Structures are given as C-alpha cells and as structure tokens.
C-alpha cells in the first residue's frame, strides 16, 4: 500500500501536527515552573542577606554598630583584610609576616588556651595585636597593661578627647570621640608604653604619676599590643566623626595584612564524633546517588502513555431501590394495614387464578371457595384475609405467614 491512502474509502486521517494554542499550553507549564523556581531562589537570597549579623563591631555588620565601612575602606586602600570567625583560621592567618590581628569584640569568649595560641602565632613574626575596648579580659593577653579604675565617679568628660601624647598616629588624628573606659600601664613610667587620649572635663581628677588613656600602645611585651579604648571609633555610625577614622585607619593599616577575628561562643568547640563520621565517604556518596536514581525511577514509572481513555456511558436508573425506599417509609410509619392489604390482594388474585375464578367473583364467594379447598375453618380464612388487624410487627408477620400457608394448601 502506498503512502497516499484513499481517505474517502478508508475513513478519517490525522497527523500529529499540534495547534499553536496547545503548544503554548504545554509550554506554559514550563514557563510557570521556571518562574516559580526563580522566585524561590530570589526569595532565598533575600532572606539570607536579611540575616546579616547585627553583632557590635562585626566585620559584616552594615548597621550603626557594624564595622563593614572600616573593613571596606581598608580594602580599598590596599590592605589585605582577612575576616573570620574561626579561631584556627585567625591563628593561621596571624602567623604570616607583616600582619596585624584585630579582635574588635568578644575577647572575653576566648579561653586562656585560645589566647596562648593566638599570641604564639603573633610572636613568630612579631605581629601586632589590636584589641578594641577589651575591658577586664585584657589581662588574658598581657600583664603589662590594665584597666584603669576611675577615681572620679561624678566626672562629666568632654565629648571629644585630645591626643595628649607624642604617638604619631594620635597626633595626626587629633581629637576623637570620648569613650567610657580607660586603660593604663601596670608599671607606670614604662618608656615603651604610650598612653593617649586621657579623659578631660569637669570633675576629672588625673593622676600624673599613673596616667590612663583611651589609646594605649605597648611595644615592649612579647607581642606588640594596641588597645583602642573606644569601640565607636571603628563603628559604622561614628567612624566619620572627628578624628575617629584617621586614628583607626592609621592604627590598622600599619601592616599590609590585617586579620579581623570575631570570636564567637561555641563555634570552635568540635562536636562529639557521630556515627556518620565513621561511615566511609564513598558509601555516603553512593547512598546519596540513590536520590537521583529514585527521581529517574519516578519519572520512568510516572510517565503516562497518553491520557486516560474516556467514554460517555448510557444512563442507567436503579429501579428496585424505590421499592426498598417505600418499604422503609411504611415500616417507619408503621403502616401495617397498608402492607397487609397489598399482600392479601396479591395472594387473593393468585388464588383466584388457581381456582379458575374470574375477576367478577365477589370476595365472599372466593373466601368460601378457599375454605372449601383447604378444609380450613371459614372464620380463620376470613380472619386471615379480611378482619385481622395486627397491632405489632410480630402479629403482622404471623398473619402473613398464615396467608402463605393457606395459599400453599390450595391444590
């Protein structure tokens, strides 16, 4: 048979050419799917960036308390800034030459061992350590500096402090914002300790023999140490005020490398090894690969070979159900008389047929013939077929049974 078949004699013919609307409809599913995926990705990204840390002086913080402005400015000016929350990474990065380690906050989280590790790393290359307002945890890093105890509780310091020292960075920066804490040397008069920015103002009593300031630089310890006594010098919110920016930038850009370490509680505690750590990685990879295998299996099994075949079936009305409905109605309304009447009439019609009596025969004649044919008491026959009025369902059943018995006795 040739490809050209006589359509007129052989019936209908079709090709699989699909109209454009149907194509768009099926393509629409993919477009909608792509849009959904895109929205999910965008939403996920937005939600993760919304979760930027709001911790004070965090290197990624973009709020007033954050420190991102300083970090970015340093990077723009050629300083290699390494930011980390991991102790190991901070220790590793601090061991490189020409590096400064900045711990902007959370120094109190570090254990003595952590501090030893950090200082040991710094000591190798004589790298500088910069602490920002460490408070009492300063004692963990050095025994040459200490927190100054304020002798004047009623003091009202000026909003800005002057350098009052010969440290070049401080002199260049000039006035800076005044903080709350002061630091001093353990042994006053140590020539290698520079103390700048003392608090001035009404009610402040300064002790010239034991100077205390907001900026303390100690070049004499195992590790060169700088204490910036006021965190707001570095914060996004106040870095642009007075000489804050100049002071912090010149302090942190003395070396080409800067490590910003933001200690966090518990991050460096190794979790106890779980069972999964003892499972070989090739086994995990193989087990994980079963997920795409399962996906493909679902696709293979789930693809339908064409739509379900449909059919318009002819209507069929249940017929006998109405009988049950009527029976239930009669039972609920206790229509014993009606039920008995129907059964009696049906039985009498059948009996009349068996006795060859026509429809014109009267009831009494029929009853007499029944009594004659069965040999039963006519009173009983009349009772069963006419007079009995059952008061309960049980009596109704008895009367019906009697009618059946009488009917069965008809020859």
């Amino acid at each position, binding site marked *: 048979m040739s490809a050209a078949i006589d359509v007129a004699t052989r*019936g209908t013919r079709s*090709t699989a050419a699909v109209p454009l609307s149907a194509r768009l409809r099926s393509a629409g599913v993919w477009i909608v799917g792509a849009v959904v995926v895109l929205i999910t990705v965008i939403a996920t990204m937005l939600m993760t960036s919304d979760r930027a840390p709001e911790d004070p002086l965090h290197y990624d913080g973009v709020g007033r308390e954050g420190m991102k402005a300083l970090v970015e400015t340093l990077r723009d000016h050629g300083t290699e800034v390494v930011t980390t929350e991991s102790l190991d990474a901070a220790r590793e990065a601090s061991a490189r030459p020409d590096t400064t380690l900045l711990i902007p906050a959370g120094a109190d989280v570090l254990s003595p061992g952590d501090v030893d590790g950090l200082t040991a790393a710094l000591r190798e290359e004589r790298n500088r350590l910069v602490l920002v307002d460490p408070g009492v945890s300063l004692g963990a890093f050095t025994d040459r500096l200490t927190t100054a105890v304020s002798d004047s509780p009623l003091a009202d310091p000026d909003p800005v402090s002057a350098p009052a020292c010969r440290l070049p960075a401080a002199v260049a920066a000039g006035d800076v914002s005044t903080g709350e804490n002061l630091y001093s040397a353990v042994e006053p008069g140590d020539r290698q300790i520079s103390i700048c920015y003392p608090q001035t103002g009404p009610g402040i009593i300064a002790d010239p023999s034991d100077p205390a300031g907001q900026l303390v630089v100690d070049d004499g310890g195992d590790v060169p140490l700088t204490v910036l006594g006021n965190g707001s010098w570095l914060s996004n919110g106040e870095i642009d005020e007075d000489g804050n920016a100049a002071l912090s930038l010149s302090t942190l850009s003395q070396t080409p490398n800067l490590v910003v370490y933001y200690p966090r509680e518990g991050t460096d505690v190794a979790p106890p090894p779980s069972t999964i750590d003892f499972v070989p990685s090739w086994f995990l990879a193989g087990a994980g690969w079963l997920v795409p295998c399962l996906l493909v299996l679902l696709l293979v099994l789930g693809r339908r070979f*064409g739509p379900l075949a449909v059919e318009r079936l002819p209507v069929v009305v249940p017929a006998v159900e109405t009988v049950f409905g009527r029976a239930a109605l009669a039972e609920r309304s206790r229509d014993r008389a009606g039920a008995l009447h129907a059964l009696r009439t049906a039985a009498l019609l059948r009996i009349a047929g068996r006795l060859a009596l026509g429809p014109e025969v009267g009831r009494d004649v029929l009853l007499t013939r029944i009594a004659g044919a069965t040999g039963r008491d006519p009173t009983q026959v009349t009772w069963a077929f006419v007079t009995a009025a059952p008061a309960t369902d049980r009596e109704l059943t008895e009367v*019906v049974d009697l009618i059946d018995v009488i009917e069965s006795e008809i020859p």
Partner: protein
Amino acid sequence: MTSRLLLLTLLGIVPVMLVPGWPSALIVAGVIAVVAVVDWRLAPAPRLIGLQRTPGPMVRLGEDTTATLTLVNDSPRRIRLHVRDAWAPSAGAHSTRTALTLDPGETREITTVFTPRRRGALAADQVTLRTATALGLVRRQKSVDVPAAIRVLPPFVSRRELPSKVQKLRELEGRSAVMIRGMGTEFDSLRDYVDGDDVRSIDWRASARAQDLIVKTWRPERDRRVVIVVDSSRLAARRSGAGTVFDAALESALLLTALAAGAGDRVDVIVADARVRATASSHRSSDPVHDLSVALTPVHPELYDADWEQIAASVLATSRQHALVVVITALDEATVAEEILPVLPTLMSRHRVVVASVADPDLDDLAARRGDATEVYTAAAAAAELLTVEALRARLRGIGVDSVAATPERLPGALADLYIGLKATGRL
C-alpha cells in the same frame, strides 16, 4: 524516560562512589541530563507519522470485531515507534500497545481485536505515539485525535425464538396443516380436490366449470401494517435484569419485526422520547432486522419525559391505513394516566393498539420475601408495585387495549405470541 535512562543513572553510581564529593556527583548528573535532553531532541518528531483509523465490520453484541490503525512514515528517517491505540473502555480492545519500526515511506497497519461489552457506537480515543532514537533514553510523545467508532448492534438474543414463532405462523398459513376459511384469512388460490380436504372449501362454481372438484385455498391476511413504538425516555433507562428496560424493548421490537416482516406485513419502528430519536421501516428493505439494528445502535435512553402527543402524531403520520400499533413502554401509573390514556382515543380511532411493558424480574423475588418485619414490608411494597401494573393492564383491557407485561427474557416471545394471536383471529 525509559528504563534505559534509569540504567544509565544507576551506572552513574560507579564514578560517584570512586570519587566521592559534590563536584563529581554534579558532573555525572549534568552529563546524564545533557545526554537525556540531546537524545530527546534527536528523536524523530511524532508529527512525521500519518495516521488513519479504519473501523471493522459491524457486529452484534457478543461477537468480536476489529479496527485497523494505519501508520505512514512520511519522513526520510527511520522511526522507532511505540503506539497506543486507545478506545473507549467498553469497546473491550484486547491489546492497545504496539512497538514497531517504520522505514522511510513505509506504511504499516495495526489491527486491534475488540470484544465489545455494550451496544452502541463505541468511539475511539486518542492515538498516542512515542518515538525514540537508537539510544532510546527519552522518548518523544504526542497524542492525536483520530476520530472513528465501531458499531455494535443489539445482541438479538431472542433470535432463537424465531423458528418456533415462524412455525406457528406457518401452521396458520396452512402449509403444514389444513387451512380453512375463517377470520384473518384471505383467498389464496384454487386447486384440485385431494382426499382429506374440507368439503366446505369446495368451490362449486369452479368445479362445475372444470368438471372436477376444485377447492379454494386460504391464507392469512398479508400486507398488514405494524407500527412499533419504543419509548426511550427516562423510564426506559431503568435497570432490569442484566441490562436496561430499553434493551429488552429493543429485543422485543427486533423479534416482532423479524416475525411480521417474514409474514409479509410492513413494519415501521419509531424510537422516541421528547422527540423522535430513530425510525426504521421494512418497506423496500431486503433485511429489515439488520436495518432496524443499525438504526437503533446509537440510540440510548435519555433522562427526558416522553412527549406522547408527538409520538401519536408521528404514528399517525407513519401509517394512514389500519395498523397494529405496539407501544413498548413502562406501565407507570402517573405516566399512563396523564400522558398515554389521553392520546389513546386518537390512535384507536384508526389503529389497534397494544401495550407491551418490561416487568422487573427482581420484583417477583422481593414480593416472595418472608421473615422479619422488614422483609414483610419490602414484600408488601413490591406486591403493591405489581398490583399497580395489574390494575393498569385491567384498565387498558377495559378500553380495548391488549397488553403484555413480562420479564426481559420473556417479553419478546410474549409479544410475538400476542401478534400471532391477533393475526390468527384477523384482528390485525
């Protein structure tokens, strides 16, 4: 998506386990995805296949039929195909799926065998084509409408009763028994007297002329009109025994048509509810039963009330001369009283009307139920239903309308007997 793609994915576990880690897993997955997409794009487009459906011969319900699906490869490529030839479920297709390979320009026919499960015009559903490359990782799929239908005629189970009924008619005709003059007979011919002929049928005038004894022969009246009205309204959609009331009505109409057309009468069939759904006539028909079957095949009862005035009008329009009008409907009290009885005088003024109705075989069983009170009430309700039918039949008899009510299996025979009885007594 085929099992080969699954196999390929399972094989991917080897490189993934040899080099554990996210990069290798992503690379393997990416390679598999790219191969699958490329394989899918390379598969021939299903629209390159030309399709044609050819329904097989009409059959009666219970017999097998076939349909042929012709596939033409119009493209210059060799195409590997999986075909699903979907049909309505009740068409009873034996096998709907085929795998084949078509060379360029090749034509192939797939013949599907059906054992239909119901009467009617059973429509084809879509043809689904799947093509694949030699690699066969992902198949392209397309479903196409190719309209066709197989026609399944009513089963005509009552055909087996036809020989006995025809025999009865022949006895009437005198071919196998002595035929005497009487009601319902007409003059047939003159022939020589043979021993045993009824002396009353000797035609003395012809005998005198022929100098020999000549008898007249008689035959039943011929060329009478029979109009069968089948009600296809909601009452015909009731379930009764294995099928519906309508199925039993069709059986009765078919048997009566076969019988009456064989006896030389002209039979017209009208199927109607709110409108006339189908008509058929034995006039100038070589095979009236087949023609009637074909006409009735696509008709199914619908949930309308019958419009009896319109039905009466179409009966009157069908036959102007005296006819036997057989109305096959339900003996429903309200319908008969309000719809059928008012139009009967119009019909009876010109025709003889017979009402046939399908009795529900379940009702007799229900009426015989005994036991507890619930059973007795059910029996009473069923008995009341049967009594209503009997009362309606008595009422119809009162106005001169014969009626038949029987179970679906008995009704065709009972109606045929009624027809033979009417014919024998010349009341046609």
